[in-house]
């Protein structure tokens, strides 16, 4: 038997072992370079101090500082503000799940034109968060935004002087939500909820489509209706939708960056910072790059996210074991 024939038959015999790798390698290599490797590199960098520069001979100017960056983080009030705001986002963002369910229940009818209504309700999710941020920034504007105008209509008197200029006299000035350290974060979260509610709504609308009609009928025969029906018959069947809604909402809350960058840039006085934005601001700031410290913040955010990722993977693993 000549060599070529053996090679050929080896390929043939192991066809089913080699083929998956041929299909996998392009995606895997690409994903490894841009996603997997950078995760480890970031964690590694968090033990360095580095301004992102290289020496003439191409070596990095990074200096090993051990856990110094993490010690600095511990004493950094901005870090704690950001962490606290992240928790606030997580907590309040969860409102998107029940509100999304409520709207889905309201819309789960079959009157004419319902499809158009459902898609129009879904609209906010399709729009870029940058645009949502701009819309709400303007919405909250105390001088000419919706909030300001409503306030003026309710609490202000309009006076026109001789020259014809309009001025307002208010019993209390209209609230400037985004400039107030106490309320700005709530204002941004409310804006962020808008698209997130739309997302949860669509998950529930699809879920409601798949609710078994016979179980609803059986429930009706047993005299269940309204809340009891919702709680005992419908919600258990919506569990997969609820699971996904919670997962995407948690991820959305922890990823919040665009809205903050657009609406307040972390201000006033850092009061609306979250880890995602603080990390960006630190790593690429006008005062020079601080890659090491930024990476330490990113690592903390990553570890928080890892809790959810592990939970999600664990759930998937349970499903896989149950399946084929």
């Amino acid at each position, binding site marked *: 038997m000549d060599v070529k024939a053996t090679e050929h038959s080896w390929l043939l015999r192991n066809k089913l072992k080699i083929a998956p790798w041929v299909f996998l390698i392009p995606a895997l290599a690409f994903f490894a370079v841009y996603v997997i490797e950078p995760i480890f590199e*970031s964690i590694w960098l968090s033990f360095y101090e580095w301004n992102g520069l290289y020496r003439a001979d191409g070596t990095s100017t990074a200096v090993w500082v051990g856990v110094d960056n993490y010690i600095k983080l511990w004493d950094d009030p901005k870090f704690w503000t950001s962490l606290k705001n992240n928790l606030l986002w997580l907590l309040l963002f969860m409102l998107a799940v029940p509100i999304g369910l409520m709207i889905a229940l309201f819309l789960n009818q079959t009157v004419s034109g319902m499809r158009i*209504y459902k898609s129009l309700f879904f609209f906010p999710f399709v729009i870029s968060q940058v645009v949502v941020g701009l819309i709400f920034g303007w919405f909250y504007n105390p001088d000419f935004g919706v909030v300001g105008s409503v306030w003026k209509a309710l609490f202000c008197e309009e006076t026109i002087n001789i020259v014809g200029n309009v001025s307002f006299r208010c019993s209390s000035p209209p609230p400037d939500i985004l400039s107030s350290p106490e309320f700005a974060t709530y204002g941004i979260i409310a804006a962020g909820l808008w698209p997130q509610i739309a997302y949860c709504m669509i*998950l529930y609308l699809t879920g*409601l489509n798949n609710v078994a009609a016979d179980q609803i009928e059986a429930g009706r025969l047993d005299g269940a209706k309204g809340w009891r029906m919702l709680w005992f018959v419908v919600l258990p069947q919506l569990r997969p939708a609820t699971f996904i809604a919670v997962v995407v909402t948690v991820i959305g809350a922890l990823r919040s960056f665009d809205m903050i960058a657009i609406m307040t840039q972390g201000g006033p006085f850092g009061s609306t910072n979250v880890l995602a934005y603080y990390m960006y601001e630190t790593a690429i700031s006008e005062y020079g790059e601080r890659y090491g410290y930024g990476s330490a913040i990113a690592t903390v955010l*990553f570890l928080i996210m890892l809790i959810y990722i592990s939970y999600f993977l664990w759930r998937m693993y349970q499903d896989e074991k149950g399946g084929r």
Partner: protein
Amino acid sequence: MFPRPIEKAGPGARIGYQLLLPFVLIIWLLPLLAIFATSIRSGADINAGNVFGWPGEFAMIENYVAVFTRSQASMYFINSILITVPSVAISVSLACLAGYALAIYRFRVALPLFFLFVAGNFVPFQILMVPVRDMSVRVGLYDTIAGQFLFHAAFQTGFCTLFMRNFIKALPFDLIESARIEGVKEWRIFWFVVLPLVRPALAALAVLIFTFVWNDFFWANVLTQGESAKPITAGVRALNGQFVNNWHLVSAASLIAAIPPVIMFFLMQRHFIAGLTLGAVK
């Protein structure tokens, strides 16, 4: 069906419901309607403080033309297309191959590899930021269109693979089995048996990834410096600074940035929703 269909509750309830619907919708979309109303006003209206009353004059065409003539909006818009289309094409095709491999072949690391894609898809962007930026600078991809779409393509491959693998796994396995018994080569099975069957998944992924990448703002800031490679989302922010107090122009620019995903969504609505949910809610 839950809640009880409104038709069964009598004509009064049905008419009440149908009257209530547009009312609730208007409240829900109020921010969007307000910004649209602003985008068709003239600058004079805004300066006079007439933001909510009936417009003094309609300036829709003037405003939208002004956005393009008085700024670099058209360049940003083209950049967005140049970034988004290759991202979709690359990530969806790579994920087809990878999803096929992970769904059809039984090998020991199939599940761990699958989980790697899933996990990677959920990580916060910030953990990737410094290394990706540093690498882009070193290989000359920083501040380029290619630098952005290569990253997006790689990142979205995670989500696409999750989606494709689950979709292919749900196909009847007998099809592949019988093709193998017939002696059909593996890549021909992929091309002629599996690929035609996953067309709905391809459409769903394409619209979803289009929307995700089009709406990206973070990477546009991390991977670009000047104006020449910025997509429309970052461009709108720049315009916001340029058009200070010209709210009618800012509004028009924002709506222009929002239009392509909205059109995509309306054209491919069924696929879009299937994509959002099927990847997860089976």
